[in-house]
């Protein structure tokens, strides 16, 4: 091989193709949906059970009930105590991962292939027949209360809680899934049992397996484990936002106050959330918003990070995101900045939000970099069985078609510069962005108020 030419960067060859694997889809007699993707290679299977029982269906008076219920699932079943249940999982080398999001509960197990039948039996015990006994609920409630106490010390959690409340108020997205100590204090085991009875049924759930297993075998094993799961008497109620809001989010009025501070005397940094209600996963602007956000704050070389980190050195990192949910989720800029740069950092963020839909629309270079970032690296999002299983779970939660991942890159590439600018005009609104700052009020309040955000409301997160 001849000497390396260092006068220019090598240009990549033709792009390798990508298609998302086709899932073998089945449905059990009780309505449970199954999806299997067989992948050769490692003797492992990722199993995921996804249910529409997330924090958006928390009763208004009991925020945190969905998450509490999910937490209780592996605390014993039938005559098996919580400890015996955990021993049984550990014996097959499995750790249950439970995640309660706003729209869904996702239960995941990574299983060695030879343990799949036992793993499915345990998962069925967990999801379908949890004991939910009063003493166990009481014990877990105390643990969660203490966990909430600890979270009060975490700046990011305070910022998230205040931000959600400011954007959504009493809307189902107005609280964190962990809930609050006030709510926990009144939550009893009857509430947990009732929530489980109402929201855990087969016909709205999806069971997914990806890895060293074929669809026929998985369907048979799933039938053995989950076939006796009874349908719910009533269809589970879906979360509903107040009427008149955009895409199910609260109406897009000028919020008041715009500036909310959580005091943390002596804090070395200020934790920031800046944004407003965004758009739902099913918006027709989804791809344009993905690209827009990439330019703005979706990767290392985005406007926000290059400005606040690489030019100003205010922060270790900053990012923006549209949190796409069933209903319109939040759009937010998230960062933690050194205290004395707080007001400057907020001003820079607001300028970036304003400019991208106005005087400084995405340039061709930025657009092509972000298109490349989103599309050329796309296959790497589906390298592992767990990643493919989570992809299938997303399709189930949002009711998306099977070709969702296949059309992603072509759709992004097909966007014209105008599409992105128009999406910015429709979906990013600097003038009504809420600013939440968790930091040392005595050092940041004056400068923030002077920046034209109006009078600050000093608040506490309801944790």
């Amino acid at each position: 091989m001849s000497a390396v030419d260092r006068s220019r960067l090598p240009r990549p060859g033709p792009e390798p193709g990508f298609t998302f694997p086709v899932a073998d889809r089945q449905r059990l007699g009780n309505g449970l949906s199954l999806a299997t993707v067989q992948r050769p290679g490692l003797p492992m299977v990722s199993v995921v059970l996804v249910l529409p029982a997330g924090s958006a269906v928390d009763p208004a008076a009991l925020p945190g009930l969905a998450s509490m219920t999910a937490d209780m699932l592996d605390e014993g079943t039938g005559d098996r105590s919580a400890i015996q249940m955990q021993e049984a999982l550990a014996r097959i080398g499995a750790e249950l991962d439970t995640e309660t999001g706003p729209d869904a509960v996702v239960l995941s197990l990574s299983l060695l292939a030879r343990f799949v039948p036992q793993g499915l039996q345990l998962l069925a015990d967990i999801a379908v027949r949890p004991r939910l006994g009063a003493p166990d609920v009481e014990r877990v409630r105390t643990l969660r209360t203490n966990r909430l106490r600890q979270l009060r010390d975490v700046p990011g959690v305070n910022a998230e809680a205040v931000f959600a409340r400011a954007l959504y108020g009493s809307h189902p997205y107005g609280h964190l899934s962990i809930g609050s100590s006030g709510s926990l204090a009144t939550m009893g085991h009857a509430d947990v049992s009732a929530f489980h009875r109402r929201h855990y049924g087969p016909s709205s759930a999806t069971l997914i397996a990806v890895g060293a297993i074929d669809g026929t075998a998985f369907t048979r094993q799933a039938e053995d484990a989950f076939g006796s799961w009874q349908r719910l008497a009533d269809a589970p109620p879906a979360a509903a936002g107040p009427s008149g809001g955009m895409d199910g989010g609260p109406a897009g009025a000028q919020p008041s106050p715009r500036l909310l501070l959580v005091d943390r005397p002596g804090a070395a940094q200020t934790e920031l959330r800046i944004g407003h209600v965004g758009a739902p996963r099913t918006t027709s602007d989804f791809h344009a918003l993905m690209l827009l956000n990439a330019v703005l704050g979706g990767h290392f070389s985005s406007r926000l990070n290059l400005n606040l980190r690489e030019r100003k050195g205010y922060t270790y990192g900053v990012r923006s995101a549209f949190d796409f949910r069933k209903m319109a989720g939040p759009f937010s800029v998230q960062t933690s900045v050194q205290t004395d740069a707080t007001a400057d950092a907020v001003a820079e963020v607001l300028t970036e939000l304003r400019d991208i839909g106005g005087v400084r629309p995405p340039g061709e270079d930025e657009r092509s970099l972000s298109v490349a970032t989103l599309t050329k690296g796309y296959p790497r999002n589906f390298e592992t069985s767990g990643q493919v299983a989570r992809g299938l779970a997303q399709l189930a939660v949002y009711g998306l078609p099977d070709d969702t991942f296949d059309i992603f890159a072509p759709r992004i590439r097909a966007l014209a510069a105008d599409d992105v600018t128009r999406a910015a005009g429709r979906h990013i609104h600097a003038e009504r962005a809420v600013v939440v700052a968790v930091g040392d009020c005595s050092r940041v309040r004056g400068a923030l108020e002077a920046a034209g955000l109006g009078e600050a409301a000093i608040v506490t997160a309801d944790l």
Partner: protein
Amino acid sequence: MWRVSQYDARERQYTPKRIAVPTSGLDIPFRKHVLDNGLQVVIHEDRSCPIVAVNVWYHVGSKNEVPGRTGFAHLFEHLMFEGSAHHASGYFEPLQHAGGTLNGSTNPDRTNYWEVVPSNALELALWMESDRMGFLLPALTDEKFHNQRDVVLNERRQTYENRPYGMAGLAMIDALFPEGHPYHWATIGSPDDLRAATADDVRAFFRRYYHPANASLAIAGDVDGDRALALAAAYFGEIPAGEPPDAVAPAPPHARPSRRVVEDRVELPRLFLGWLSPATYADGDAELDLLADVLATGKASRLYRALVYERRVATDVSAYQGSRELGSAFQVVATAVPGVGLGVLEAAIHEEIARVREADLSEDELDRARALTETAFVSRLQSVGGFGGKSDQLNHYNVFLGDPGYFSRDLERYRNAGRARVRAAAEAHLASGQCVTLSAVPLGQRALAAPDSELVVMR
């Protein structure tokens, strides 16, 4: 995360552990070649996803620093992303343009850098990785240096100063490894030292540690092995060989372990117990790793069961063998429930460990720890790149053991760690008299600390 330098004192991304009993034939097939300039090249083919990983380890970390310049290895790592002679601007942009992702991290023993790119962009990754290995300094400017120093100071604020129990983590490192030990300071360094660093320090550090003879390159993924090797030779072969740096020697352990307390902005007090333990891959390392699972992984583990489930004196408990090149630390960390002092937790933890030492360790609980380990081991084979992916593992084994193919023997270590050996390791290394004890308590509540603790103030 795409933030550069996700650096984690506990290195959660990759703990070299975990085994198989019945699963056999698991390994990472590879070939290894040493270039004339001393660069070790390890290649692994995996054509299942159209991506390829490039991973470089430099055998330098914060252990190579000197007092007064702590935090330097990590600050230097940041500068590696800011440009090199033939591409003098940021490293993210061109690689992202090709659909790649990249990052790096620093710990006491080593610094790693990686890219994962679509398989058509392998040459780009090699070009860039080789340019900063061979030609970093001409692109270094004072402006970049000062900017990244500010970024690192903010990383420290975010990771330690403004995070609950963050300063306790730093205090634990200080207490575990005595003055004069190369692990005595945290990889993030002290703010004063970071501010005292100069661009000249950068130049000297680069010349001493960043050259082929102190590095290992792994390429893993969708690429033909012959082609990968030829490309590695072409891009890296022209970089001049350097002098392998001298090995760093560990200081002897402290004579008398300390009992300390720090006050922090926290709601609940947390206890940190630590013992100096065998170095990574030494006898006892895998045994203590398994013991950590027996003690505190999952709700059926001993300490969870005793402290959280039954006695309800703690809200959480964890244990781990933090394996390191010069010597490790075994740690148990537990948070008390409101109203319970850390002395209660301290006594209960020592009691449980004493029971293990005194033969009360069942085959069943060890089997469970082994099963969890096997799952984790197999899971590690799923990704070619990134922290803990196959390319990172090949370099890990190559740098610390000289054998990239150690994966299956690593499994064997756990398979061979039976009850007697786990007990013996606990006996040899986890005596209560040799334990470093640190209490982190809410401001003004020193009474909650473990008894006879001395107040220390971290900054």
